[in-house]
Structures are given as structure tokens and as C-alpha cells.
């Protein structure tokens, strides 16, 4: 049997989290090194997975299979396709960055880092699951870490509200999807939860049309689909920095990834039937999210709503159901995950030092924290879809794909590029340029070396993929080809 690299990747954070939780009180000095070691190891392992995934062979690789509850068709089945690999790498990056930027958390650090590790296990598990039951198992694992992290370490004014709202919305989404998943199980002739078997099952057209909305909408709520998006800005703003990064960067991708894997890939006929509706909702996401982001006064809310807007692009890509759209969506999932993590980390760095997120009272920060400014501009350019960065190679295929099926949607959603440019440039001008307010002079210090590593690392990936698309495009392509085969075969 091969080295079970996926299991190891998934369970390293869990074990590290348990160790930190149980022994962190006695040995407070060990907490951060253990968390850092675990997250570095996860990052290294995900990079190894990326490097050793064979593009020629394509399909699901690094598979592991253990019967878990055979009489009900439940198994411990892991494996990743190209899109899954990209998601794992993105998760590795975000978790590592999350640990780095949280280094100075000193209120109950043992709990903080252990819950962060549990959250990492949950998302890594979802991206690697090839069994529907296992997918839900990992998905629901995240409920308590994210809730507790928001209400304990979050922004005091809104954490109780934001935390509860976020957790309940995500729970509603996942149980809605669970209803659909049970229906899929019930309709499958083998009575199985195994995704590979279910992919090859041709469900009746009627059944697919009835249950597709449950599964897709349920998971898409996790991805912030309109009109169920409001948890995202409220929750992300209430959360501590590392959790905002993980929730917006990774957890929203968990939603759309599962919507793709379970919704579109298992019920292709349902996807075709409902594609127009998804397109309509997602277009509202893109345009509405961008406009709302523009009028925000709070730095963090701008980023929160920009996530809503960008996730809409992913869903538009899905709904186009063609090569370009899906390819762009896959790339956008990666690119947005890294970008939004970078944004939230910089917002956190600024807030930690200035103690305000009010855009109007910030200014001139390029003098004191030039790295943060550079990082924010890189992220901003990615967000606008500037050529040479990962955002461009992600967004262009999406627009190309949607043009083939619905040119109107392409035209409407392109507005968002202009609006995005507007709000990003506004924020950059207000926050980083202009005069440094008097009360900040001498008091606001530069960001730490660890923060700079995070900014450098995340920017590096966005620039590298923008300049050398072949690093990521063929990988996503293998996944997309598989989906197209399923869509064509149905």
C-alpha cells in the first residue's frame, strides 16, 4: 500500500490540535511552535501532492479506501482530482499564513491554535473526500471551532451576532444539502455514499431536477450565493484575522467545491435544468456585491463584500457548464482563496496597529508599513483581473465561457470589473496614501517579519501563476475534462 499522504495531511492538524488543547496550559511555550510545525508540514505535504500529481494520468489520485460501514454503503474513501489538488495547496497556504499572522494572540492561545488546527482538518478532509458521508462528516466538524473562535476572539461589538449568524447559515446550508444527499443515496441502485460509484450512476431526469436545488443551493449558501450571502460579510468582520482568512479564503471554497462535486457532477441533468437560475443569482452576487463593497465605510466590510462578488464569478463559471467557464471557476477558486486571505491578513495587521477599521480615519500608512501597502496593491490588482496576475487568467476564461451561453450575463457582470477597480483604488488611496493622521505618528509601528513572510508568500503564488499559467492551468484542466465527460455523457 502506498504512503497514505492524504490521511496524513488531514490528520496532522487534528493531532497537533489535540496536543495543544490538552497540554498547552502546562507548556505555553510549545503552543506556537507545534502549530507552526503542523501547518508547515501540511503546506509541504500539499506542495508535494501538487508536484507528484500526474497530469497525464488525470482522474482521482492518491486514493485511499477503507470500508467504514459497509452495510450502509459508507466508506473512508479519499482521493483528489486536479481541482482538489489546487484546493489543498490553497488550504495549506492559508492555514500556514493564518498561524503566522496569529502569532501574537495572547488570550487563551492554547485554545485558539487548537481550534484553528481542527478547522484545518475539517477543510482538508472535505477537499479529499470521495464519499458523501465522509464529506459531511468533515464539513460538520467545522461547526464548533469556527463558532467558538468568532465568539471568543472576535470583534467584541458584533461577535455574538456575527458568529451565530455565520454558524447557523452554514449549518442550514449543509443540512439542506444533506437532504439532497440522502435522496441521492436512496435513489442509487447500490445504496452507496461512494462518490465514484454515484458519478457513474445515471439518475432519472425527474429525480435530478427535484433534488439538484437542495444539494446545489445548500452548498452554495456556504459559498455565499445571493440572497443567502449576508452571513459572509457579517461573519468575516466579526471573526479574528486568521479565521476571516480561513472562512473567506477556504470555507467559501468548500461550499462551491462541494456544490460542484455533489451537485453538478452527480446530478448533471439537474445542473443543466437549473443553470439559468444559478446564472441569475450569481450575476446578482457579482454586481450587487461589488456595488455594496464600494459604499462601505469599514475596511473589513469592503473585503467581505468583495468576496461575495468574486464568489459570484465562480458560480457563473459553474453555470456556464462549458470548458472555459469551469476552467475559469477552478482557477478563480484558487486565486480568490489566496487573494482574500492576503486582504484579510493585511486588514488585520492594520487594525492591530491602528485599532480602527474606519476608512475615513486611516491614511498615509505607506510610510509606516510599506510591505502591507505592496501586498494590498498586489491583491487589489488580482482582484481587478489585471494581466500578469492570477486573477486575470481566472476571470478571462469565465467571461469567455459565459459569453458562449449567455452574452447578456457577460456584459452585465463585466460592470463589476470597473466597480471593483473603483473600490480597490479608493481604499488604497484613502488607507495607504495621503497624510498619516497625527494620532498615528510615532505610535503605529511597521508589521513584523512574520507578517512580511505571509504577504510575500501569498503574493508570490498569485504572481507566479499569473506569469506562468501552465503551473496551474493543466492541473485544473484535468478536473474540468472529467466534469465535461460527465456532463456530455448524461
Amino acid at each position, binding site marked *: 500500500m502506498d504512503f497514505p499522504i492524504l490521511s496524513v495531511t488531514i490528520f496532522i492538524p487534528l493531532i497537533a490540535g489535540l496536543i495543544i*488543547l490538552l497540554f498547552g*496550559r502546562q507548556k505555553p511555550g510549545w503552543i506556537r511552535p507545534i502549530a507552526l510545525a503542523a501547518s508547515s508540514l501540511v503546506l509541504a505535504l500539499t506542495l508535494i501532492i501538487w508536484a507528484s500529481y500526474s497530469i497525464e494520468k488525470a482522474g482521482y489520485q492518491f486514493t485511499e479506501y477503507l470500508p*467504514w*460501514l*459497509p*452495510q*450502509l454503503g*459508507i466508506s473512508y474513501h479519499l482521493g483528489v482530482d486536479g481541482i482538489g489538488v489546487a484546493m489543498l495547496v490553497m488550504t495549506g497556504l492559508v492555514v500556514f499564513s493564518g498561524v503566522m499572522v496569529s502569532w501574537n494572540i495572547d*488570550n*487563551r492561545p492554547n*485554545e485558539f491554535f487548537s481550534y484553528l488546527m481542527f478547522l484545518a482538518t475539517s477543510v482538508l478532509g472535505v477537499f479529499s473526500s470521495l464519499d458523501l*458521508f465522509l464529506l*459531511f*462528516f*468533515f464539513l*460538520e*466538524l467545522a*461547526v*464548533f471551532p469556527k*463558532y*467558538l473562535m468568532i*465568539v*471568543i476572539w472576535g470583534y467584541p461589538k458584533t461577535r*455574538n451576532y456575527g*458568529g*451565530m449568524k455565520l*454558524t*447557523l447559515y452554514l*449549518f*442550514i446550508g449543509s*443540512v*439542506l444539502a*444533506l*437532504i439532497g444527499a*440522502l*435522496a441521492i*443515496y*436512496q435513489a442509487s441502485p447500490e445504496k452507496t455514499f461512494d462518490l465514484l460509484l454515484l458519478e457513474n450512476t445515471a439518475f432519472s431526469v425527474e429525480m435530478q431536477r427535484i433534488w439538484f436545488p437542495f444539494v446545489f443551493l445548500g452548498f452554495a449558501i456556504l459559498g455565499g450565493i445571493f440572497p443567502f450571502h449576508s452571513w459572509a460579510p457579517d461573519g468575516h468582520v466579526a471573526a479574528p484575522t486568521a479565521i476571516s482568512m480561513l472562512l473567506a479564503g477556504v470555507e467559501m471554497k468548500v461550499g462551491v467545491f462541494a456544490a460542484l462535486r455533489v451537485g453538478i457532477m452527480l446530478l448533471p441533468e439537474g445542473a443543466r435544468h437549473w443553470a439559468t437560475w444559478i446564472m441569475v443569482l450569481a450575476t446578482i452576487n457579482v454586481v450587487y456585491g461589488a456595488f455594496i463593497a464600494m459604499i462601505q465605510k469599514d475596511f473589513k466590510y469592503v473585503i467581505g463584500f468583495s468576496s461575495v462578488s468574486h464568489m459570484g464569478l465562480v458560480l457563473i463559471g459553474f453555470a456556464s457548464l462549458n470548458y472555459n467557464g469551469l476552467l475559469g471557476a477552478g482557477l478563480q477558486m484558487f486565486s480568490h482563496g489566496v487573494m482574500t486571505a492576503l486582504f484579510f491578513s493585511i486588514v488585520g495587521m492594520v487594525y492591530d496597529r491602528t485599532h480602527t477599521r474606519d476608512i475615513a480615519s486611516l491614511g498615509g500608512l505607506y510610510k509606516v508599513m510599506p510591505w502591507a501597502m505592496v501586498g494590498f496593491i498586489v491583491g487589489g490588482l488580482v482582484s481587478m483581473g489585471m494581466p500578469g496576475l492570477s486573477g486575470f487568467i481566472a476571470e478571462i476564461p469565465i467571461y469567455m465561457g459565459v459569453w458562449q451561453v449567455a452574452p447578456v450575463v457577460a456584459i452585465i457582470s463585466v460592470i463589476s470589473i470597473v466597480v471593483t477597480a473603483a473600490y480597490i483604488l479608493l481604499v488604497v488611496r484613502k488607507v495607504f496614501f495621503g497624510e498619516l493622521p497625527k494620532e498615528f505618528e510615532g505610535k503605529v509601528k511597521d508589521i513584523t517579519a512574520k507578517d512580511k513572510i505571509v504577504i510575500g508568500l501569498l503574493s508570490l503564488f498569485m504572481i507566479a501563476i499569473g506569469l506562468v499559467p501552465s503551473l496551474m492551468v493543466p492541473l485544473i484542466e484535468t478536473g474540468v475534462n472529467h466534469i465535461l465527460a460527465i456532463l456530455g455523457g448524461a
Partner: protein
Amino acid sequence: MGSNMITHFDLIAILPEIFLLGLIAIVMIVDVFRKKQINGNTISWITFLGLLIIILVTLLFLSPGNTTRYAWGGMMRVDAASFTFQLIVMIGAAITTLFSMYHQEVNDKGEYFAMLLLSVIGMSMMAASSNIILLYLAIETTAIPLYVLVGFLTNNNFSIESGLKYFLFGAFTSAVLLYGFSLLYGFTGSTHFTEILAAIEAGKISTGLLVFILLLTIVGFGAKISGFPFHFWAPDAYQGAPTPITGYLSTASKAIGFVVIMRFMVSIFSPEPQSWTLLLALMATASMFVGNLLALVQKDIKRMFAYSSIAHAGYILIGVASGTALGFKASMYYLLAYLFTNLAVFGVIHIVEKSKKSSEIESFHGLMQRSPGIALVFLIAVLSLAGIPPFGGFVSKVLVFMAAMDAGLIWLLIIGIVNSIIALYYYLTVLRITFADSEESKSQTIYLGWKLALSVCVIGIILMGVIFTPWLNWLEVASTNLMLLH
């Protein structure tokens, strides 16, 4: 059936009950002759060790395997279902005994443990009875000690009041149940389940009358599981009873109520499957909504979990109402996981209540910083109740929902899901309070017996959440045997 001789097998069938009776005698004798101490736990340890031995003997020597046999002239049915539920009750009682230690008002009293053991005997008979007379006697043998135990804190008026309420409500519902039984006997001329069924199949009772009898018996059984609208006793009794007894009422007593319902419905009303499943499905719906919505507004944590327990009766009823072997299996799995989960919940409440002298929800404020150990146990147990993996409650919920989907009860499945969302709200609220920042650092004292009990519960919750096959295989046998009619 038919023989008047007491056979060897008859004695084996009631061996656990005989042992329990012996244990009661030992407890009472020791209680008379030992020196009284203020805070002695001698009797609790004797009870616990005795129960442990009986559990081990039952587990090792008395397993019926896949066979179904009748004892005492058809009065008792010895099968995997009765065996499983006897074990559930005894494990529940053993854990309750551990929590009762260091409880100054009960741990020194032999009669407390004797009553507890007596109720175990009653429940053990309930699990096995296949005769309406024996069933009624077993129900009363269970209920009377429980009335006493709920009102046991004699210097606390609220405890006495709740004991009295429980007694009045219990006596009333038992009377209705007995009326239903008498009609069954009157029309069929027999007290054995199998003969009653044969008479019903032969058309001796009209459908209308059968449905009437069904309604009467549901009143009696509904009260045992605290299902709506027979749940009124539960919040008061749960709040007033000594907390270990609350845990016992909400787990062992409820589990036995369920196995009796399953056995009785399948044995007696199998010619009328639509009526009893529909009735139970409606009861499930109402129990979930009433339990969860009222739990939202509670200020007392015992009362909140009392309503939560009513809601859980609703989830478990989903499995029963699907009326299939899968549904029964799911409900049994749920009950087993719920045993460990709710005992842990009330165990932690008991510990916090003892040090804070209050069962307000606020007494949990900052528990994580005072006593991380029990706060984590509480976290695990509450998440399991909320149906979050990797704990037993998650698998249980998925199983009952699968059973509902399988039986075509999609509306019931959706109601169950809506309710788990409502429930998550108050479970998270309690957890937020437990994990809130707090200046207080005085840690809770946790005695050896409590630690032991909490560890057993946590291990049970996690084992049932990550390894399912062994338990489900066993419950598969129990549920199919339960559905066999002859």
C-alpha cells in the same frame, strides 16, 4: 408455552433481576449495620461494583445471540432487543450511581440506591415482557421508585413538588394505559402479545376500536418517553429531581419507554401499520417543535435540557415512526448514543451545580477557564446532542433521517432537519457562555467517581461517533428480532 413447570431457562431469563434483588438486599443490610458517616460513599461504591459485576455477567454469559425464546410461559421474550436494553439500563444506573457519590443528601442513604436498583429491575422486565399483565406490573415497578427518587430531596420543597407532579401525571397515564390493556383482554381473551395478535388478525376487534385502544396505550407510553402532549411532567421533574436522577430519567427510563413502544406496536398493531406510524410521526413532529422552541427561552439549564430531551424523544420517534427494521435500528442507535451523551450533560450540570449552588445557565459562565476538563466534556456532549461529528449524535441523526427517507417520510425528515437548526441555536448559546472569558479561576473539585463516569461517557460518545459497524451489527440483530412476530 403451556408448561406449568419452572424450567431451567426460566431462571436464566431472570438471572439479572435475581442478582439485582440480591444487590438490593446487600445494600439494605449494609445500610443498617455500618457506621454512619457524613460524607461516606460506601453504599454508592457497593451499588456500583454490584452493578458492574451484573453487567459483566450479563454481557458474558447471558447473550441470547440471534435466538428468540419465551420464558415463564410466554410472559417474557428473551431476545437481542431485551438483552440490549437491559444492558442500557444497567449501564445508565451504574453511571448514575457514580454521579450520586459526594451528593450529601443521597450518597449516605441506602434507600436511595435500593430504589434506583428496584427501578432497574422494573425496566429490565419492561424490556422483555410480552404479556400485558407483566408489562403493566413492570411499568409500575419502574414508576414507583422513580416517583420516590424525583422527590428525594425532602428538605427542598421544589423537589417534593416535582415528585408529586410526576406521581400524579404518571398515575393518571398508567390508568389510561391500563384501560387500553383491559379492552385488549376483553376483546381477545388473552394477555399474551402473540395470542392477542392472532385474535386481531382473526378480526375479533373492529378497526375503529383498535385505533381507540391504540390511542389509549399511546397515552401511557407517550408519558414514559416524554413525548408531546404527555411531556408536561418532564420539565418540572427534571428540574426538581436530584441531578443524577434527572440524567437517569432522561436516558435509561426513556430508552425503555421506546423499546416497549417498538415491541408493543409491532406485536399488537401490525395489522394497522398506517395508523400507529402516522400517530407516532405526528407525536415526533410536535415533540421536536415544542421541545426545541421552549428550550430557547429557558434560564435554568436543567429545564433547558429537559426541553431538549423532549425534542430528542421526537428525533428518536422519527426512526420508530418509519416502522422499518432500519428505522428501529436507527432509533436504537440513537438511544444508545443518547445514553452516554445525556448522562454526560447532566453529570457536568450536577458538578457545576454543586459548586455554584445554582442551576442557572449563568453558573456555566467561564467554565472553560475554571475547569477545562469538564468544560471539554460538556462541549463534546452538547455537540453530540446537536448532531455534530465526530460524536455519536451525528451518526444517530443521519441514521434516523436515512430511515425517514427510506420510508418515504420526506416531510418528517425536513421537520427533523429544521429542528436541528433551531436546536443548534441554543446549544451554541450554552457553549458560548461556557467558553466565555472570565476572571474567576477557582476550579471545580472533581472526585474520582465523577471522573470515572465522565470518562466512560466520553469514550462512549466518541466510539459511537467514529466506529459504527460493531454496534450497528448488534443492533441489526436486535431490530430484526424485535420485528419477528412469532
